[in-house]
């Protein structure tokens, strides 16, 4: 059996599945049950500064997008940080950490952007015995209006400044949680790195309006007759999160900076993909909120099954393995030529590939009177649309053309050597090939 033990920043946990800072980790009751269910660690629901806690709305906090059979695909929320007193949370964290020394407990924090505020809270957090802190620079609603959360996360200078304060007043690992609501994720990651953060975690939720109530003419969730943008999470955000993780992993300036990946992790596979892109572990929120704590069991069994099949004995064996294969468009091999191929035996003759290619692509699929579909190699540009719209997995495949054969579309011989846009004659700024 593969060893799922995770060592992230020296913080040990029996597996790489942590619950992200959110309602599942808002109190002792939840966290104890999560640990009993098998979660490797938690990032405690974000704490604010001493004083009267924030207040949440008393109407609906969530909106959602569903797929077939109401499978939840995306969730949006307008919840704030914890609305329970700081003292209560700190006491609970202390108790739980004592009882679960083998699990990771990270304390998420969001206090005003003043040195004193951090200086005040950090020793108290340190006293709980928790394994580290996560700086919530990501929350996109409510807290940002008060100059915290994503309002800090969108300004790299602030990120660096606050990170430095934390490193000054706190001895254990400092993780900086990034907001995706920016144009280039590398800038805040570089700032965290410059502030000597031990790691970054991402993504927090994405600004969103999930739906509009057409009777009320207001966004949902609607509080009375108004709604606001909320933070989007769940399976729908995974592709966005994965790109951001990969960007940081392959950025020369942040290369090697540990990453805790968050965003739509629902099964073992999501975790494996994030980790292949350089994440040391993953955090989960929506999957737990949708299915309960038990979901972690599949993540554990699936990941170890896959690792066994691949011959990986520890997480380090595959973390970051896909990073070298993430490149820029300009470096893709323009001499690679493929053609779509339809397997007639698997084809169920729905004609979706035909409609897609004929109406919106390259008119490269032929339909016979008796509904046999075939690809016209002389038209096919290998765009992959037909593969993606085909309801039968494996029915349409992309077949690479061997070097030396002639591409009937261009009439050119498929070249053996790699060549990309940087050297292509059509590129006005092409460098001469050497």
């Amino acid at each position, binding site marked *: 059996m593969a060893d799922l033990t995770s060592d992230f920043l020296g913080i040990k946990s029996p597996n790489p599945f942590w619950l992200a800072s959110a309602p599942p980790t808002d109190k002792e009751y939840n966290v104890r049950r999560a640990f009993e269910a098998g979660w490797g660690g938690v990032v405690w629901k974000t704490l604010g500064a001493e004083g009267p806690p924030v207040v949440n709305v008393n109407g609906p906090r969530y909106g959602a997008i569903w797929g*077939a*059979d*109401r499978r939840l695909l995306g969730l949006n929320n307008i919840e704030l940080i914890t609305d329970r007193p700081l003292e209560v949370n700190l006491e609970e964290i202390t108790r739980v950490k004592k009882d679960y020394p083998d699990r990771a407990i990270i304390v998420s924090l969001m206090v005003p952007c003043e040195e004193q505020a951090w200086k005040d809270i950090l020793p108290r957090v340190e006293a709980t015995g928790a394994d580290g802190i996560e700086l919530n620079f990501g929350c996109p609603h409510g807290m940002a209006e008060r100059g915290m959360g994503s309002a800090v996360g969108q300004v790299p200078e602030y990120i660096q400044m606050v990170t430095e304060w934390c490193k000054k007043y706190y001895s254990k690992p400092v993780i900086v949680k990034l907001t995706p609501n920016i144009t280039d994720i590398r800038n805040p990651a570089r700032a965290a790195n410059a502030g000597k953060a031990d790691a970054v975690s991402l993504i927090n939720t994405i600004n969103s309006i999930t739906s509009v109530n057409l009777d009320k003419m207001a966004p949902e969730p609607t509080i009375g007759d108004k709604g606001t943008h909320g933070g989007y999470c769940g399976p729908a955000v995974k592709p966005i999160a994965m790109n951001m993780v990969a960007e940081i992993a392959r950025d020369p300036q942040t290369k090697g900076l540990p990453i805790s990946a968050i965003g739509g992790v629902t099964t073992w596979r999501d975790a494996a993909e994030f980790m292949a892109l350089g994440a040391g572990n993953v955090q989960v929120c929506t999957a737990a909120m949708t299915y309960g704590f038990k979901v972690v069991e599949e993540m554990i069994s699936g990941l170890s099954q896959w690792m066994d099949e691949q011959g990986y004995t520890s997480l380090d064996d595959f973390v970051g393995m896909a990073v070298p294969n993430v490149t820029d468009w300009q470096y893709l091999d323009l001499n690679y030529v493929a053609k779509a191929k339809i397997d007639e035996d698997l084809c*169920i*003759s*729905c*004609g*979706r590939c*035909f*409609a897609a290619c004929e109406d919106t692509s390259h008119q490269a699929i032929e*339909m016979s009177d008796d*509904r046999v579909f075939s690809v016209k190699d002389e038209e096919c540009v290998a765009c992959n649309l037909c593969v993606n719209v085909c*309801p*039968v997995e494996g029915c349409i495949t992309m077949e690479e053309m061997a070097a030396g054969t002639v591409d009937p579309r261009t009439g050119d011989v498929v070249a053996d050597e790699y060549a990309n846009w940087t050297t292509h004659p059509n590129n006005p700024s092409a460098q001469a090939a050497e």
Partner: protein
Amino acid sequence: MATSHQASGVQAGRLPAEEIAENFSDLHPAYDPHEAAVAADRCYFCYDAPCVTACPTSIDIPQFIREIQAGHPASAARTILNQNILGGMCARVCPTETLCEEVCVREAAEGKPVEIGRLQRYATDVLMEQGSHPFTRAESTGKSVAVVGAGPAGLAAAHRLAMLGHDVVIHEAKAKSGGLNEFGIAAYKSTEDFAAREVDWLLQIGGITVEHGKALGQALSLEQLKADYDAVFLSIGLAGVNALRLDGEAMEGVCDAVNFIEDVRQADALAEVPVGRDVVVVGGGMTAIDAAVQSKLLGAENVTVAYRRSRAEMGASRFEQDLAASKGVKLMFNVQPAGLKGNGALEAVELEYTSSEGGKLSGTGEMVTVPANQLFKAIGQTLQGQPDMLALEGRKIKVDDQGRTSVSGIWAGGDCASGGEDLTVTAVAEGRDAAMDIHAALTGAAG
């Protein structure tokens, strides 16, 4: 004493009324909105979808399913009804397993088609429950058309003609409209008086008068109709039934399956419909299966369908055969009735085994005797009461693709006319298409 279930002879109330009611509940129950959404989501929205081609009324199936999926079932219903005004009934009675669902690509792929019939029912139910009628009449053309027979073909023709601005009078022999929708379709396919409700809803278009108790050949003559109206559409179905031609056919207990089914459909209380303890149904079509299944559901102990050819040749689809088997009906193949036994009342049926080698059916001489208090003849309906002036093709009124008969000004469609299968949906298609041709003829509009 034997309980009523086992009581000999032909008796009503073999089962408690509640059990009978339960037995006759909807064969394909209605979807709730969530089930409909999930079922609709299975549709692949095929290009040039095979299901549309397979539907005799060419309903745009991917379109209506998409409308359900996108949350507007009432417009889905309009898509259906545009092509097939009896889309509600067809959703219940069409043998979808041999029509649209048979060619669904998901049937080919995984043996589980999109449940087109039930989705169609969902959409049409939603619209009909709104109580309104989605179509309006065009400006009056001043023309009038006589329709003879208020079955699916007649109703479809009348509705289309009324919509196009013609005035329509339907002459119907019976006291109720609907044709076999009302009298023939199995009770578990058309529950809660759906046939009558659908007729009322259809007539909301306006411009259609139904005159009941007006039989062509009796109070009415075709000559008179031709003289009184601008066009005539005949949709009189098949009012006759084939006989076995055996001695003792007049014995008590020997009757036509269609009459039995009509009794079931028209009964105020199903527990009052008498049925034999031992029932034999002779025939192999939908009528035979329906009579057998309904006998069983009423509490008959032994029900046997005796069909003279093989299973593969049976008119009833495999789905219908399995339905019958699942209710406990015994299906016998390659047997034909050779004699009726009984003294005044039927006691048993003698069946002879057959072989159909080389396509020619012949008795083998080997006999088997099956006890029977009741025998239902379901060996085909025949055209009856058709006017002499019309040419026939086979045993039906000869029509061309537009439904024109051999006499100008007279159209025909549905079971009474040549061409097409004898199905509700085919009758609707033929009625609708004849109406379009009548319209073209009356207004000079290009067909």
